[in-house]
């Protein structure tokens, strides 16, 4: 009998996200059909009519849209190197104090093939903490510390999350697919004046130094390795929309 035990797979996760993303336009369509032409579509950002004036359906749609509007990415990043591909791009969110202290980003990266059979894609979840910001010059901010961690996975049949079942127990006690990394970096942020900005209200350039779990394990037990041997440098740009 087939076991009903749930096994995690990226395909399932993407499937759920895809399904959720598809629900949204369907709701919009249903709403367009059912609402009379003269009423405005419920607006997420300006709720000035009182609850009495609108139907419970509209209230529901309004709440629904407000909830999902929080998931609209508020920033984008592009990055060179940094152990997650030669180039990677992300969509993400900033939040916390003044909406800028914490950041969560999801990166997609490309690893060139070099000597191997084919190039590969990476997917990275990155959590950053940016506690300080000092204004310098007119439109510039200096952020002397950006730190955090990121978990990166690489696609390809050569990699496994945990050792395949063919091996005896504890044969390989690590994952080749998922790398856990920590990083430290600095940023320079340019606030685009509101009379000239078109798409983004600020642009930042940053560099980061990161290292991964397996490198730390190697570094910890060997005097031969210096800190420079295990560090990985990356450069990037961040575009904030709001």
């Amino acid at each position, binding site marked *: 009998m087939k076991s009903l035990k749930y096994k995690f797979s990226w395909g399932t996760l993407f499937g759920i996200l895809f399904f959720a993303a598809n629900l949204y336009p369907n709701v919009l369509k249903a709403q367009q059909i059912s609402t009379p032409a003269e009423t405005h579509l419920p607006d997420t950002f300006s709720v000035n009519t009182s609850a009495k004036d609108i139907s419970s359906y509209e209230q529901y749609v309004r709440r629904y849209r407000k909830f999902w509007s929080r998931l609209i990415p508020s920033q984008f990043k592009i990055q060179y190197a940094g152990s997650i591909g030669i180039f990677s791009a992300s969509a993400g969110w900033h939040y916390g104090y003044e909406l800028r202290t914490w950041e969560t980003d999801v990166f997609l990266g490309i690893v060139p093939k070099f000597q*191997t059979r084919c190039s590969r894609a990476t997917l990275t979840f990155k959590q950053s903490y940016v506690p300080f910001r000092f204004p310098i010059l007119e439109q510039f901010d200096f952020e002397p510390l950006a730190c955090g961690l990121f978990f990166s996975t*690489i696609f390809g049949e050569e990699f496994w999350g945990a050792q395949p079942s*063919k091996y005896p127990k504890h044969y390989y006690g690590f994952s*080749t697919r998922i790398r856990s990394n920590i990083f430290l970096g600095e940023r320079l942020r340019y606030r685009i004046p509101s009379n000239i900005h078109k798409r983004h209200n600020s642009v930042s350039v940053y560099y980061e130094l990161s290292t991964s779990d397996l490198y730390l*394990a190697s570094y910890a037990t060997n005097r031969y390795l210096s800190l420079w041997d295990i560090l990985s440098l990356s450069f990037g740009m961040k575009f904030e929309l709001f």
Partner: protein
Amino acid sequence: MKRFSTFSLYLIILVAFQACDLIEYHPYDSHVKGATHLTYQMIQRIQDACAEKDTIRFAQISDTQRWYDETQDLVNAINAHGNIDFVIHTGDQTDFGLTKEFIWQRNIMAGFKMPFVCIIGNHDCLGLGEETYHKIYGNDNFSFNAGFLHVVCLNTNAFEYDYSSNIPDFQYIKQDIDSVPPGISRTIVAMHAIPYSEQFNNIAEYFNLTLQKYPGLTCCLCGHDHHNDVIYPFKNGVPYYECAAAREKTYLLFTITKNSYTYEIVKI
């Protein structure tokens, strides 16, 4: 002002050179800088240096994964011996198959005054490690002649390939047996995993029968189990000398002549 800008230019160039080594696209990206295709070059050096010799003396090290300090000590000790013709590394130079691990180990072993060859181990196959190995060293099956001695190095990590590739590659072994030049009176076969280990394919008996066709099969070398041992897996008089991991800080020293050979464990 001009002095300052020149200075800052130097500084930028210095930082840029430093930064070059820090750029990494992925830990498994197989992006190798520096010397590559070492096996071919090393074999040429061994064949040239040992062509006329009556006594061949070589060292065996194994399983140096994540023991960089110990590997450095082994390199220094083998260099200090002063009378070793070449070194055989019987696999597992990396623990995770990472590209940087291969590069660190290559850079340490580049300190050998004598030529060295490296065999692929099961840990070297992880991720894209196998392809990195092929780039830095070359084919995973190779052989060379040191005077009267024929040395065959084989990939025996069949478990890593789900037993679905020709490992050990009998086609290669057969071709190699056919192409042994005249004047060879002894053969040594080196591998990472010993027959009957969990890595080896379940065709150990056939492997043994095939190796018997080599002229003067003397002994076999292996690693994988991290301790020094002498094993007779087929009980036919052919010993398998197992070399300990670098952690034990020992290497095996073989002295081969046409009439006899000696084996000793050297503790450094």
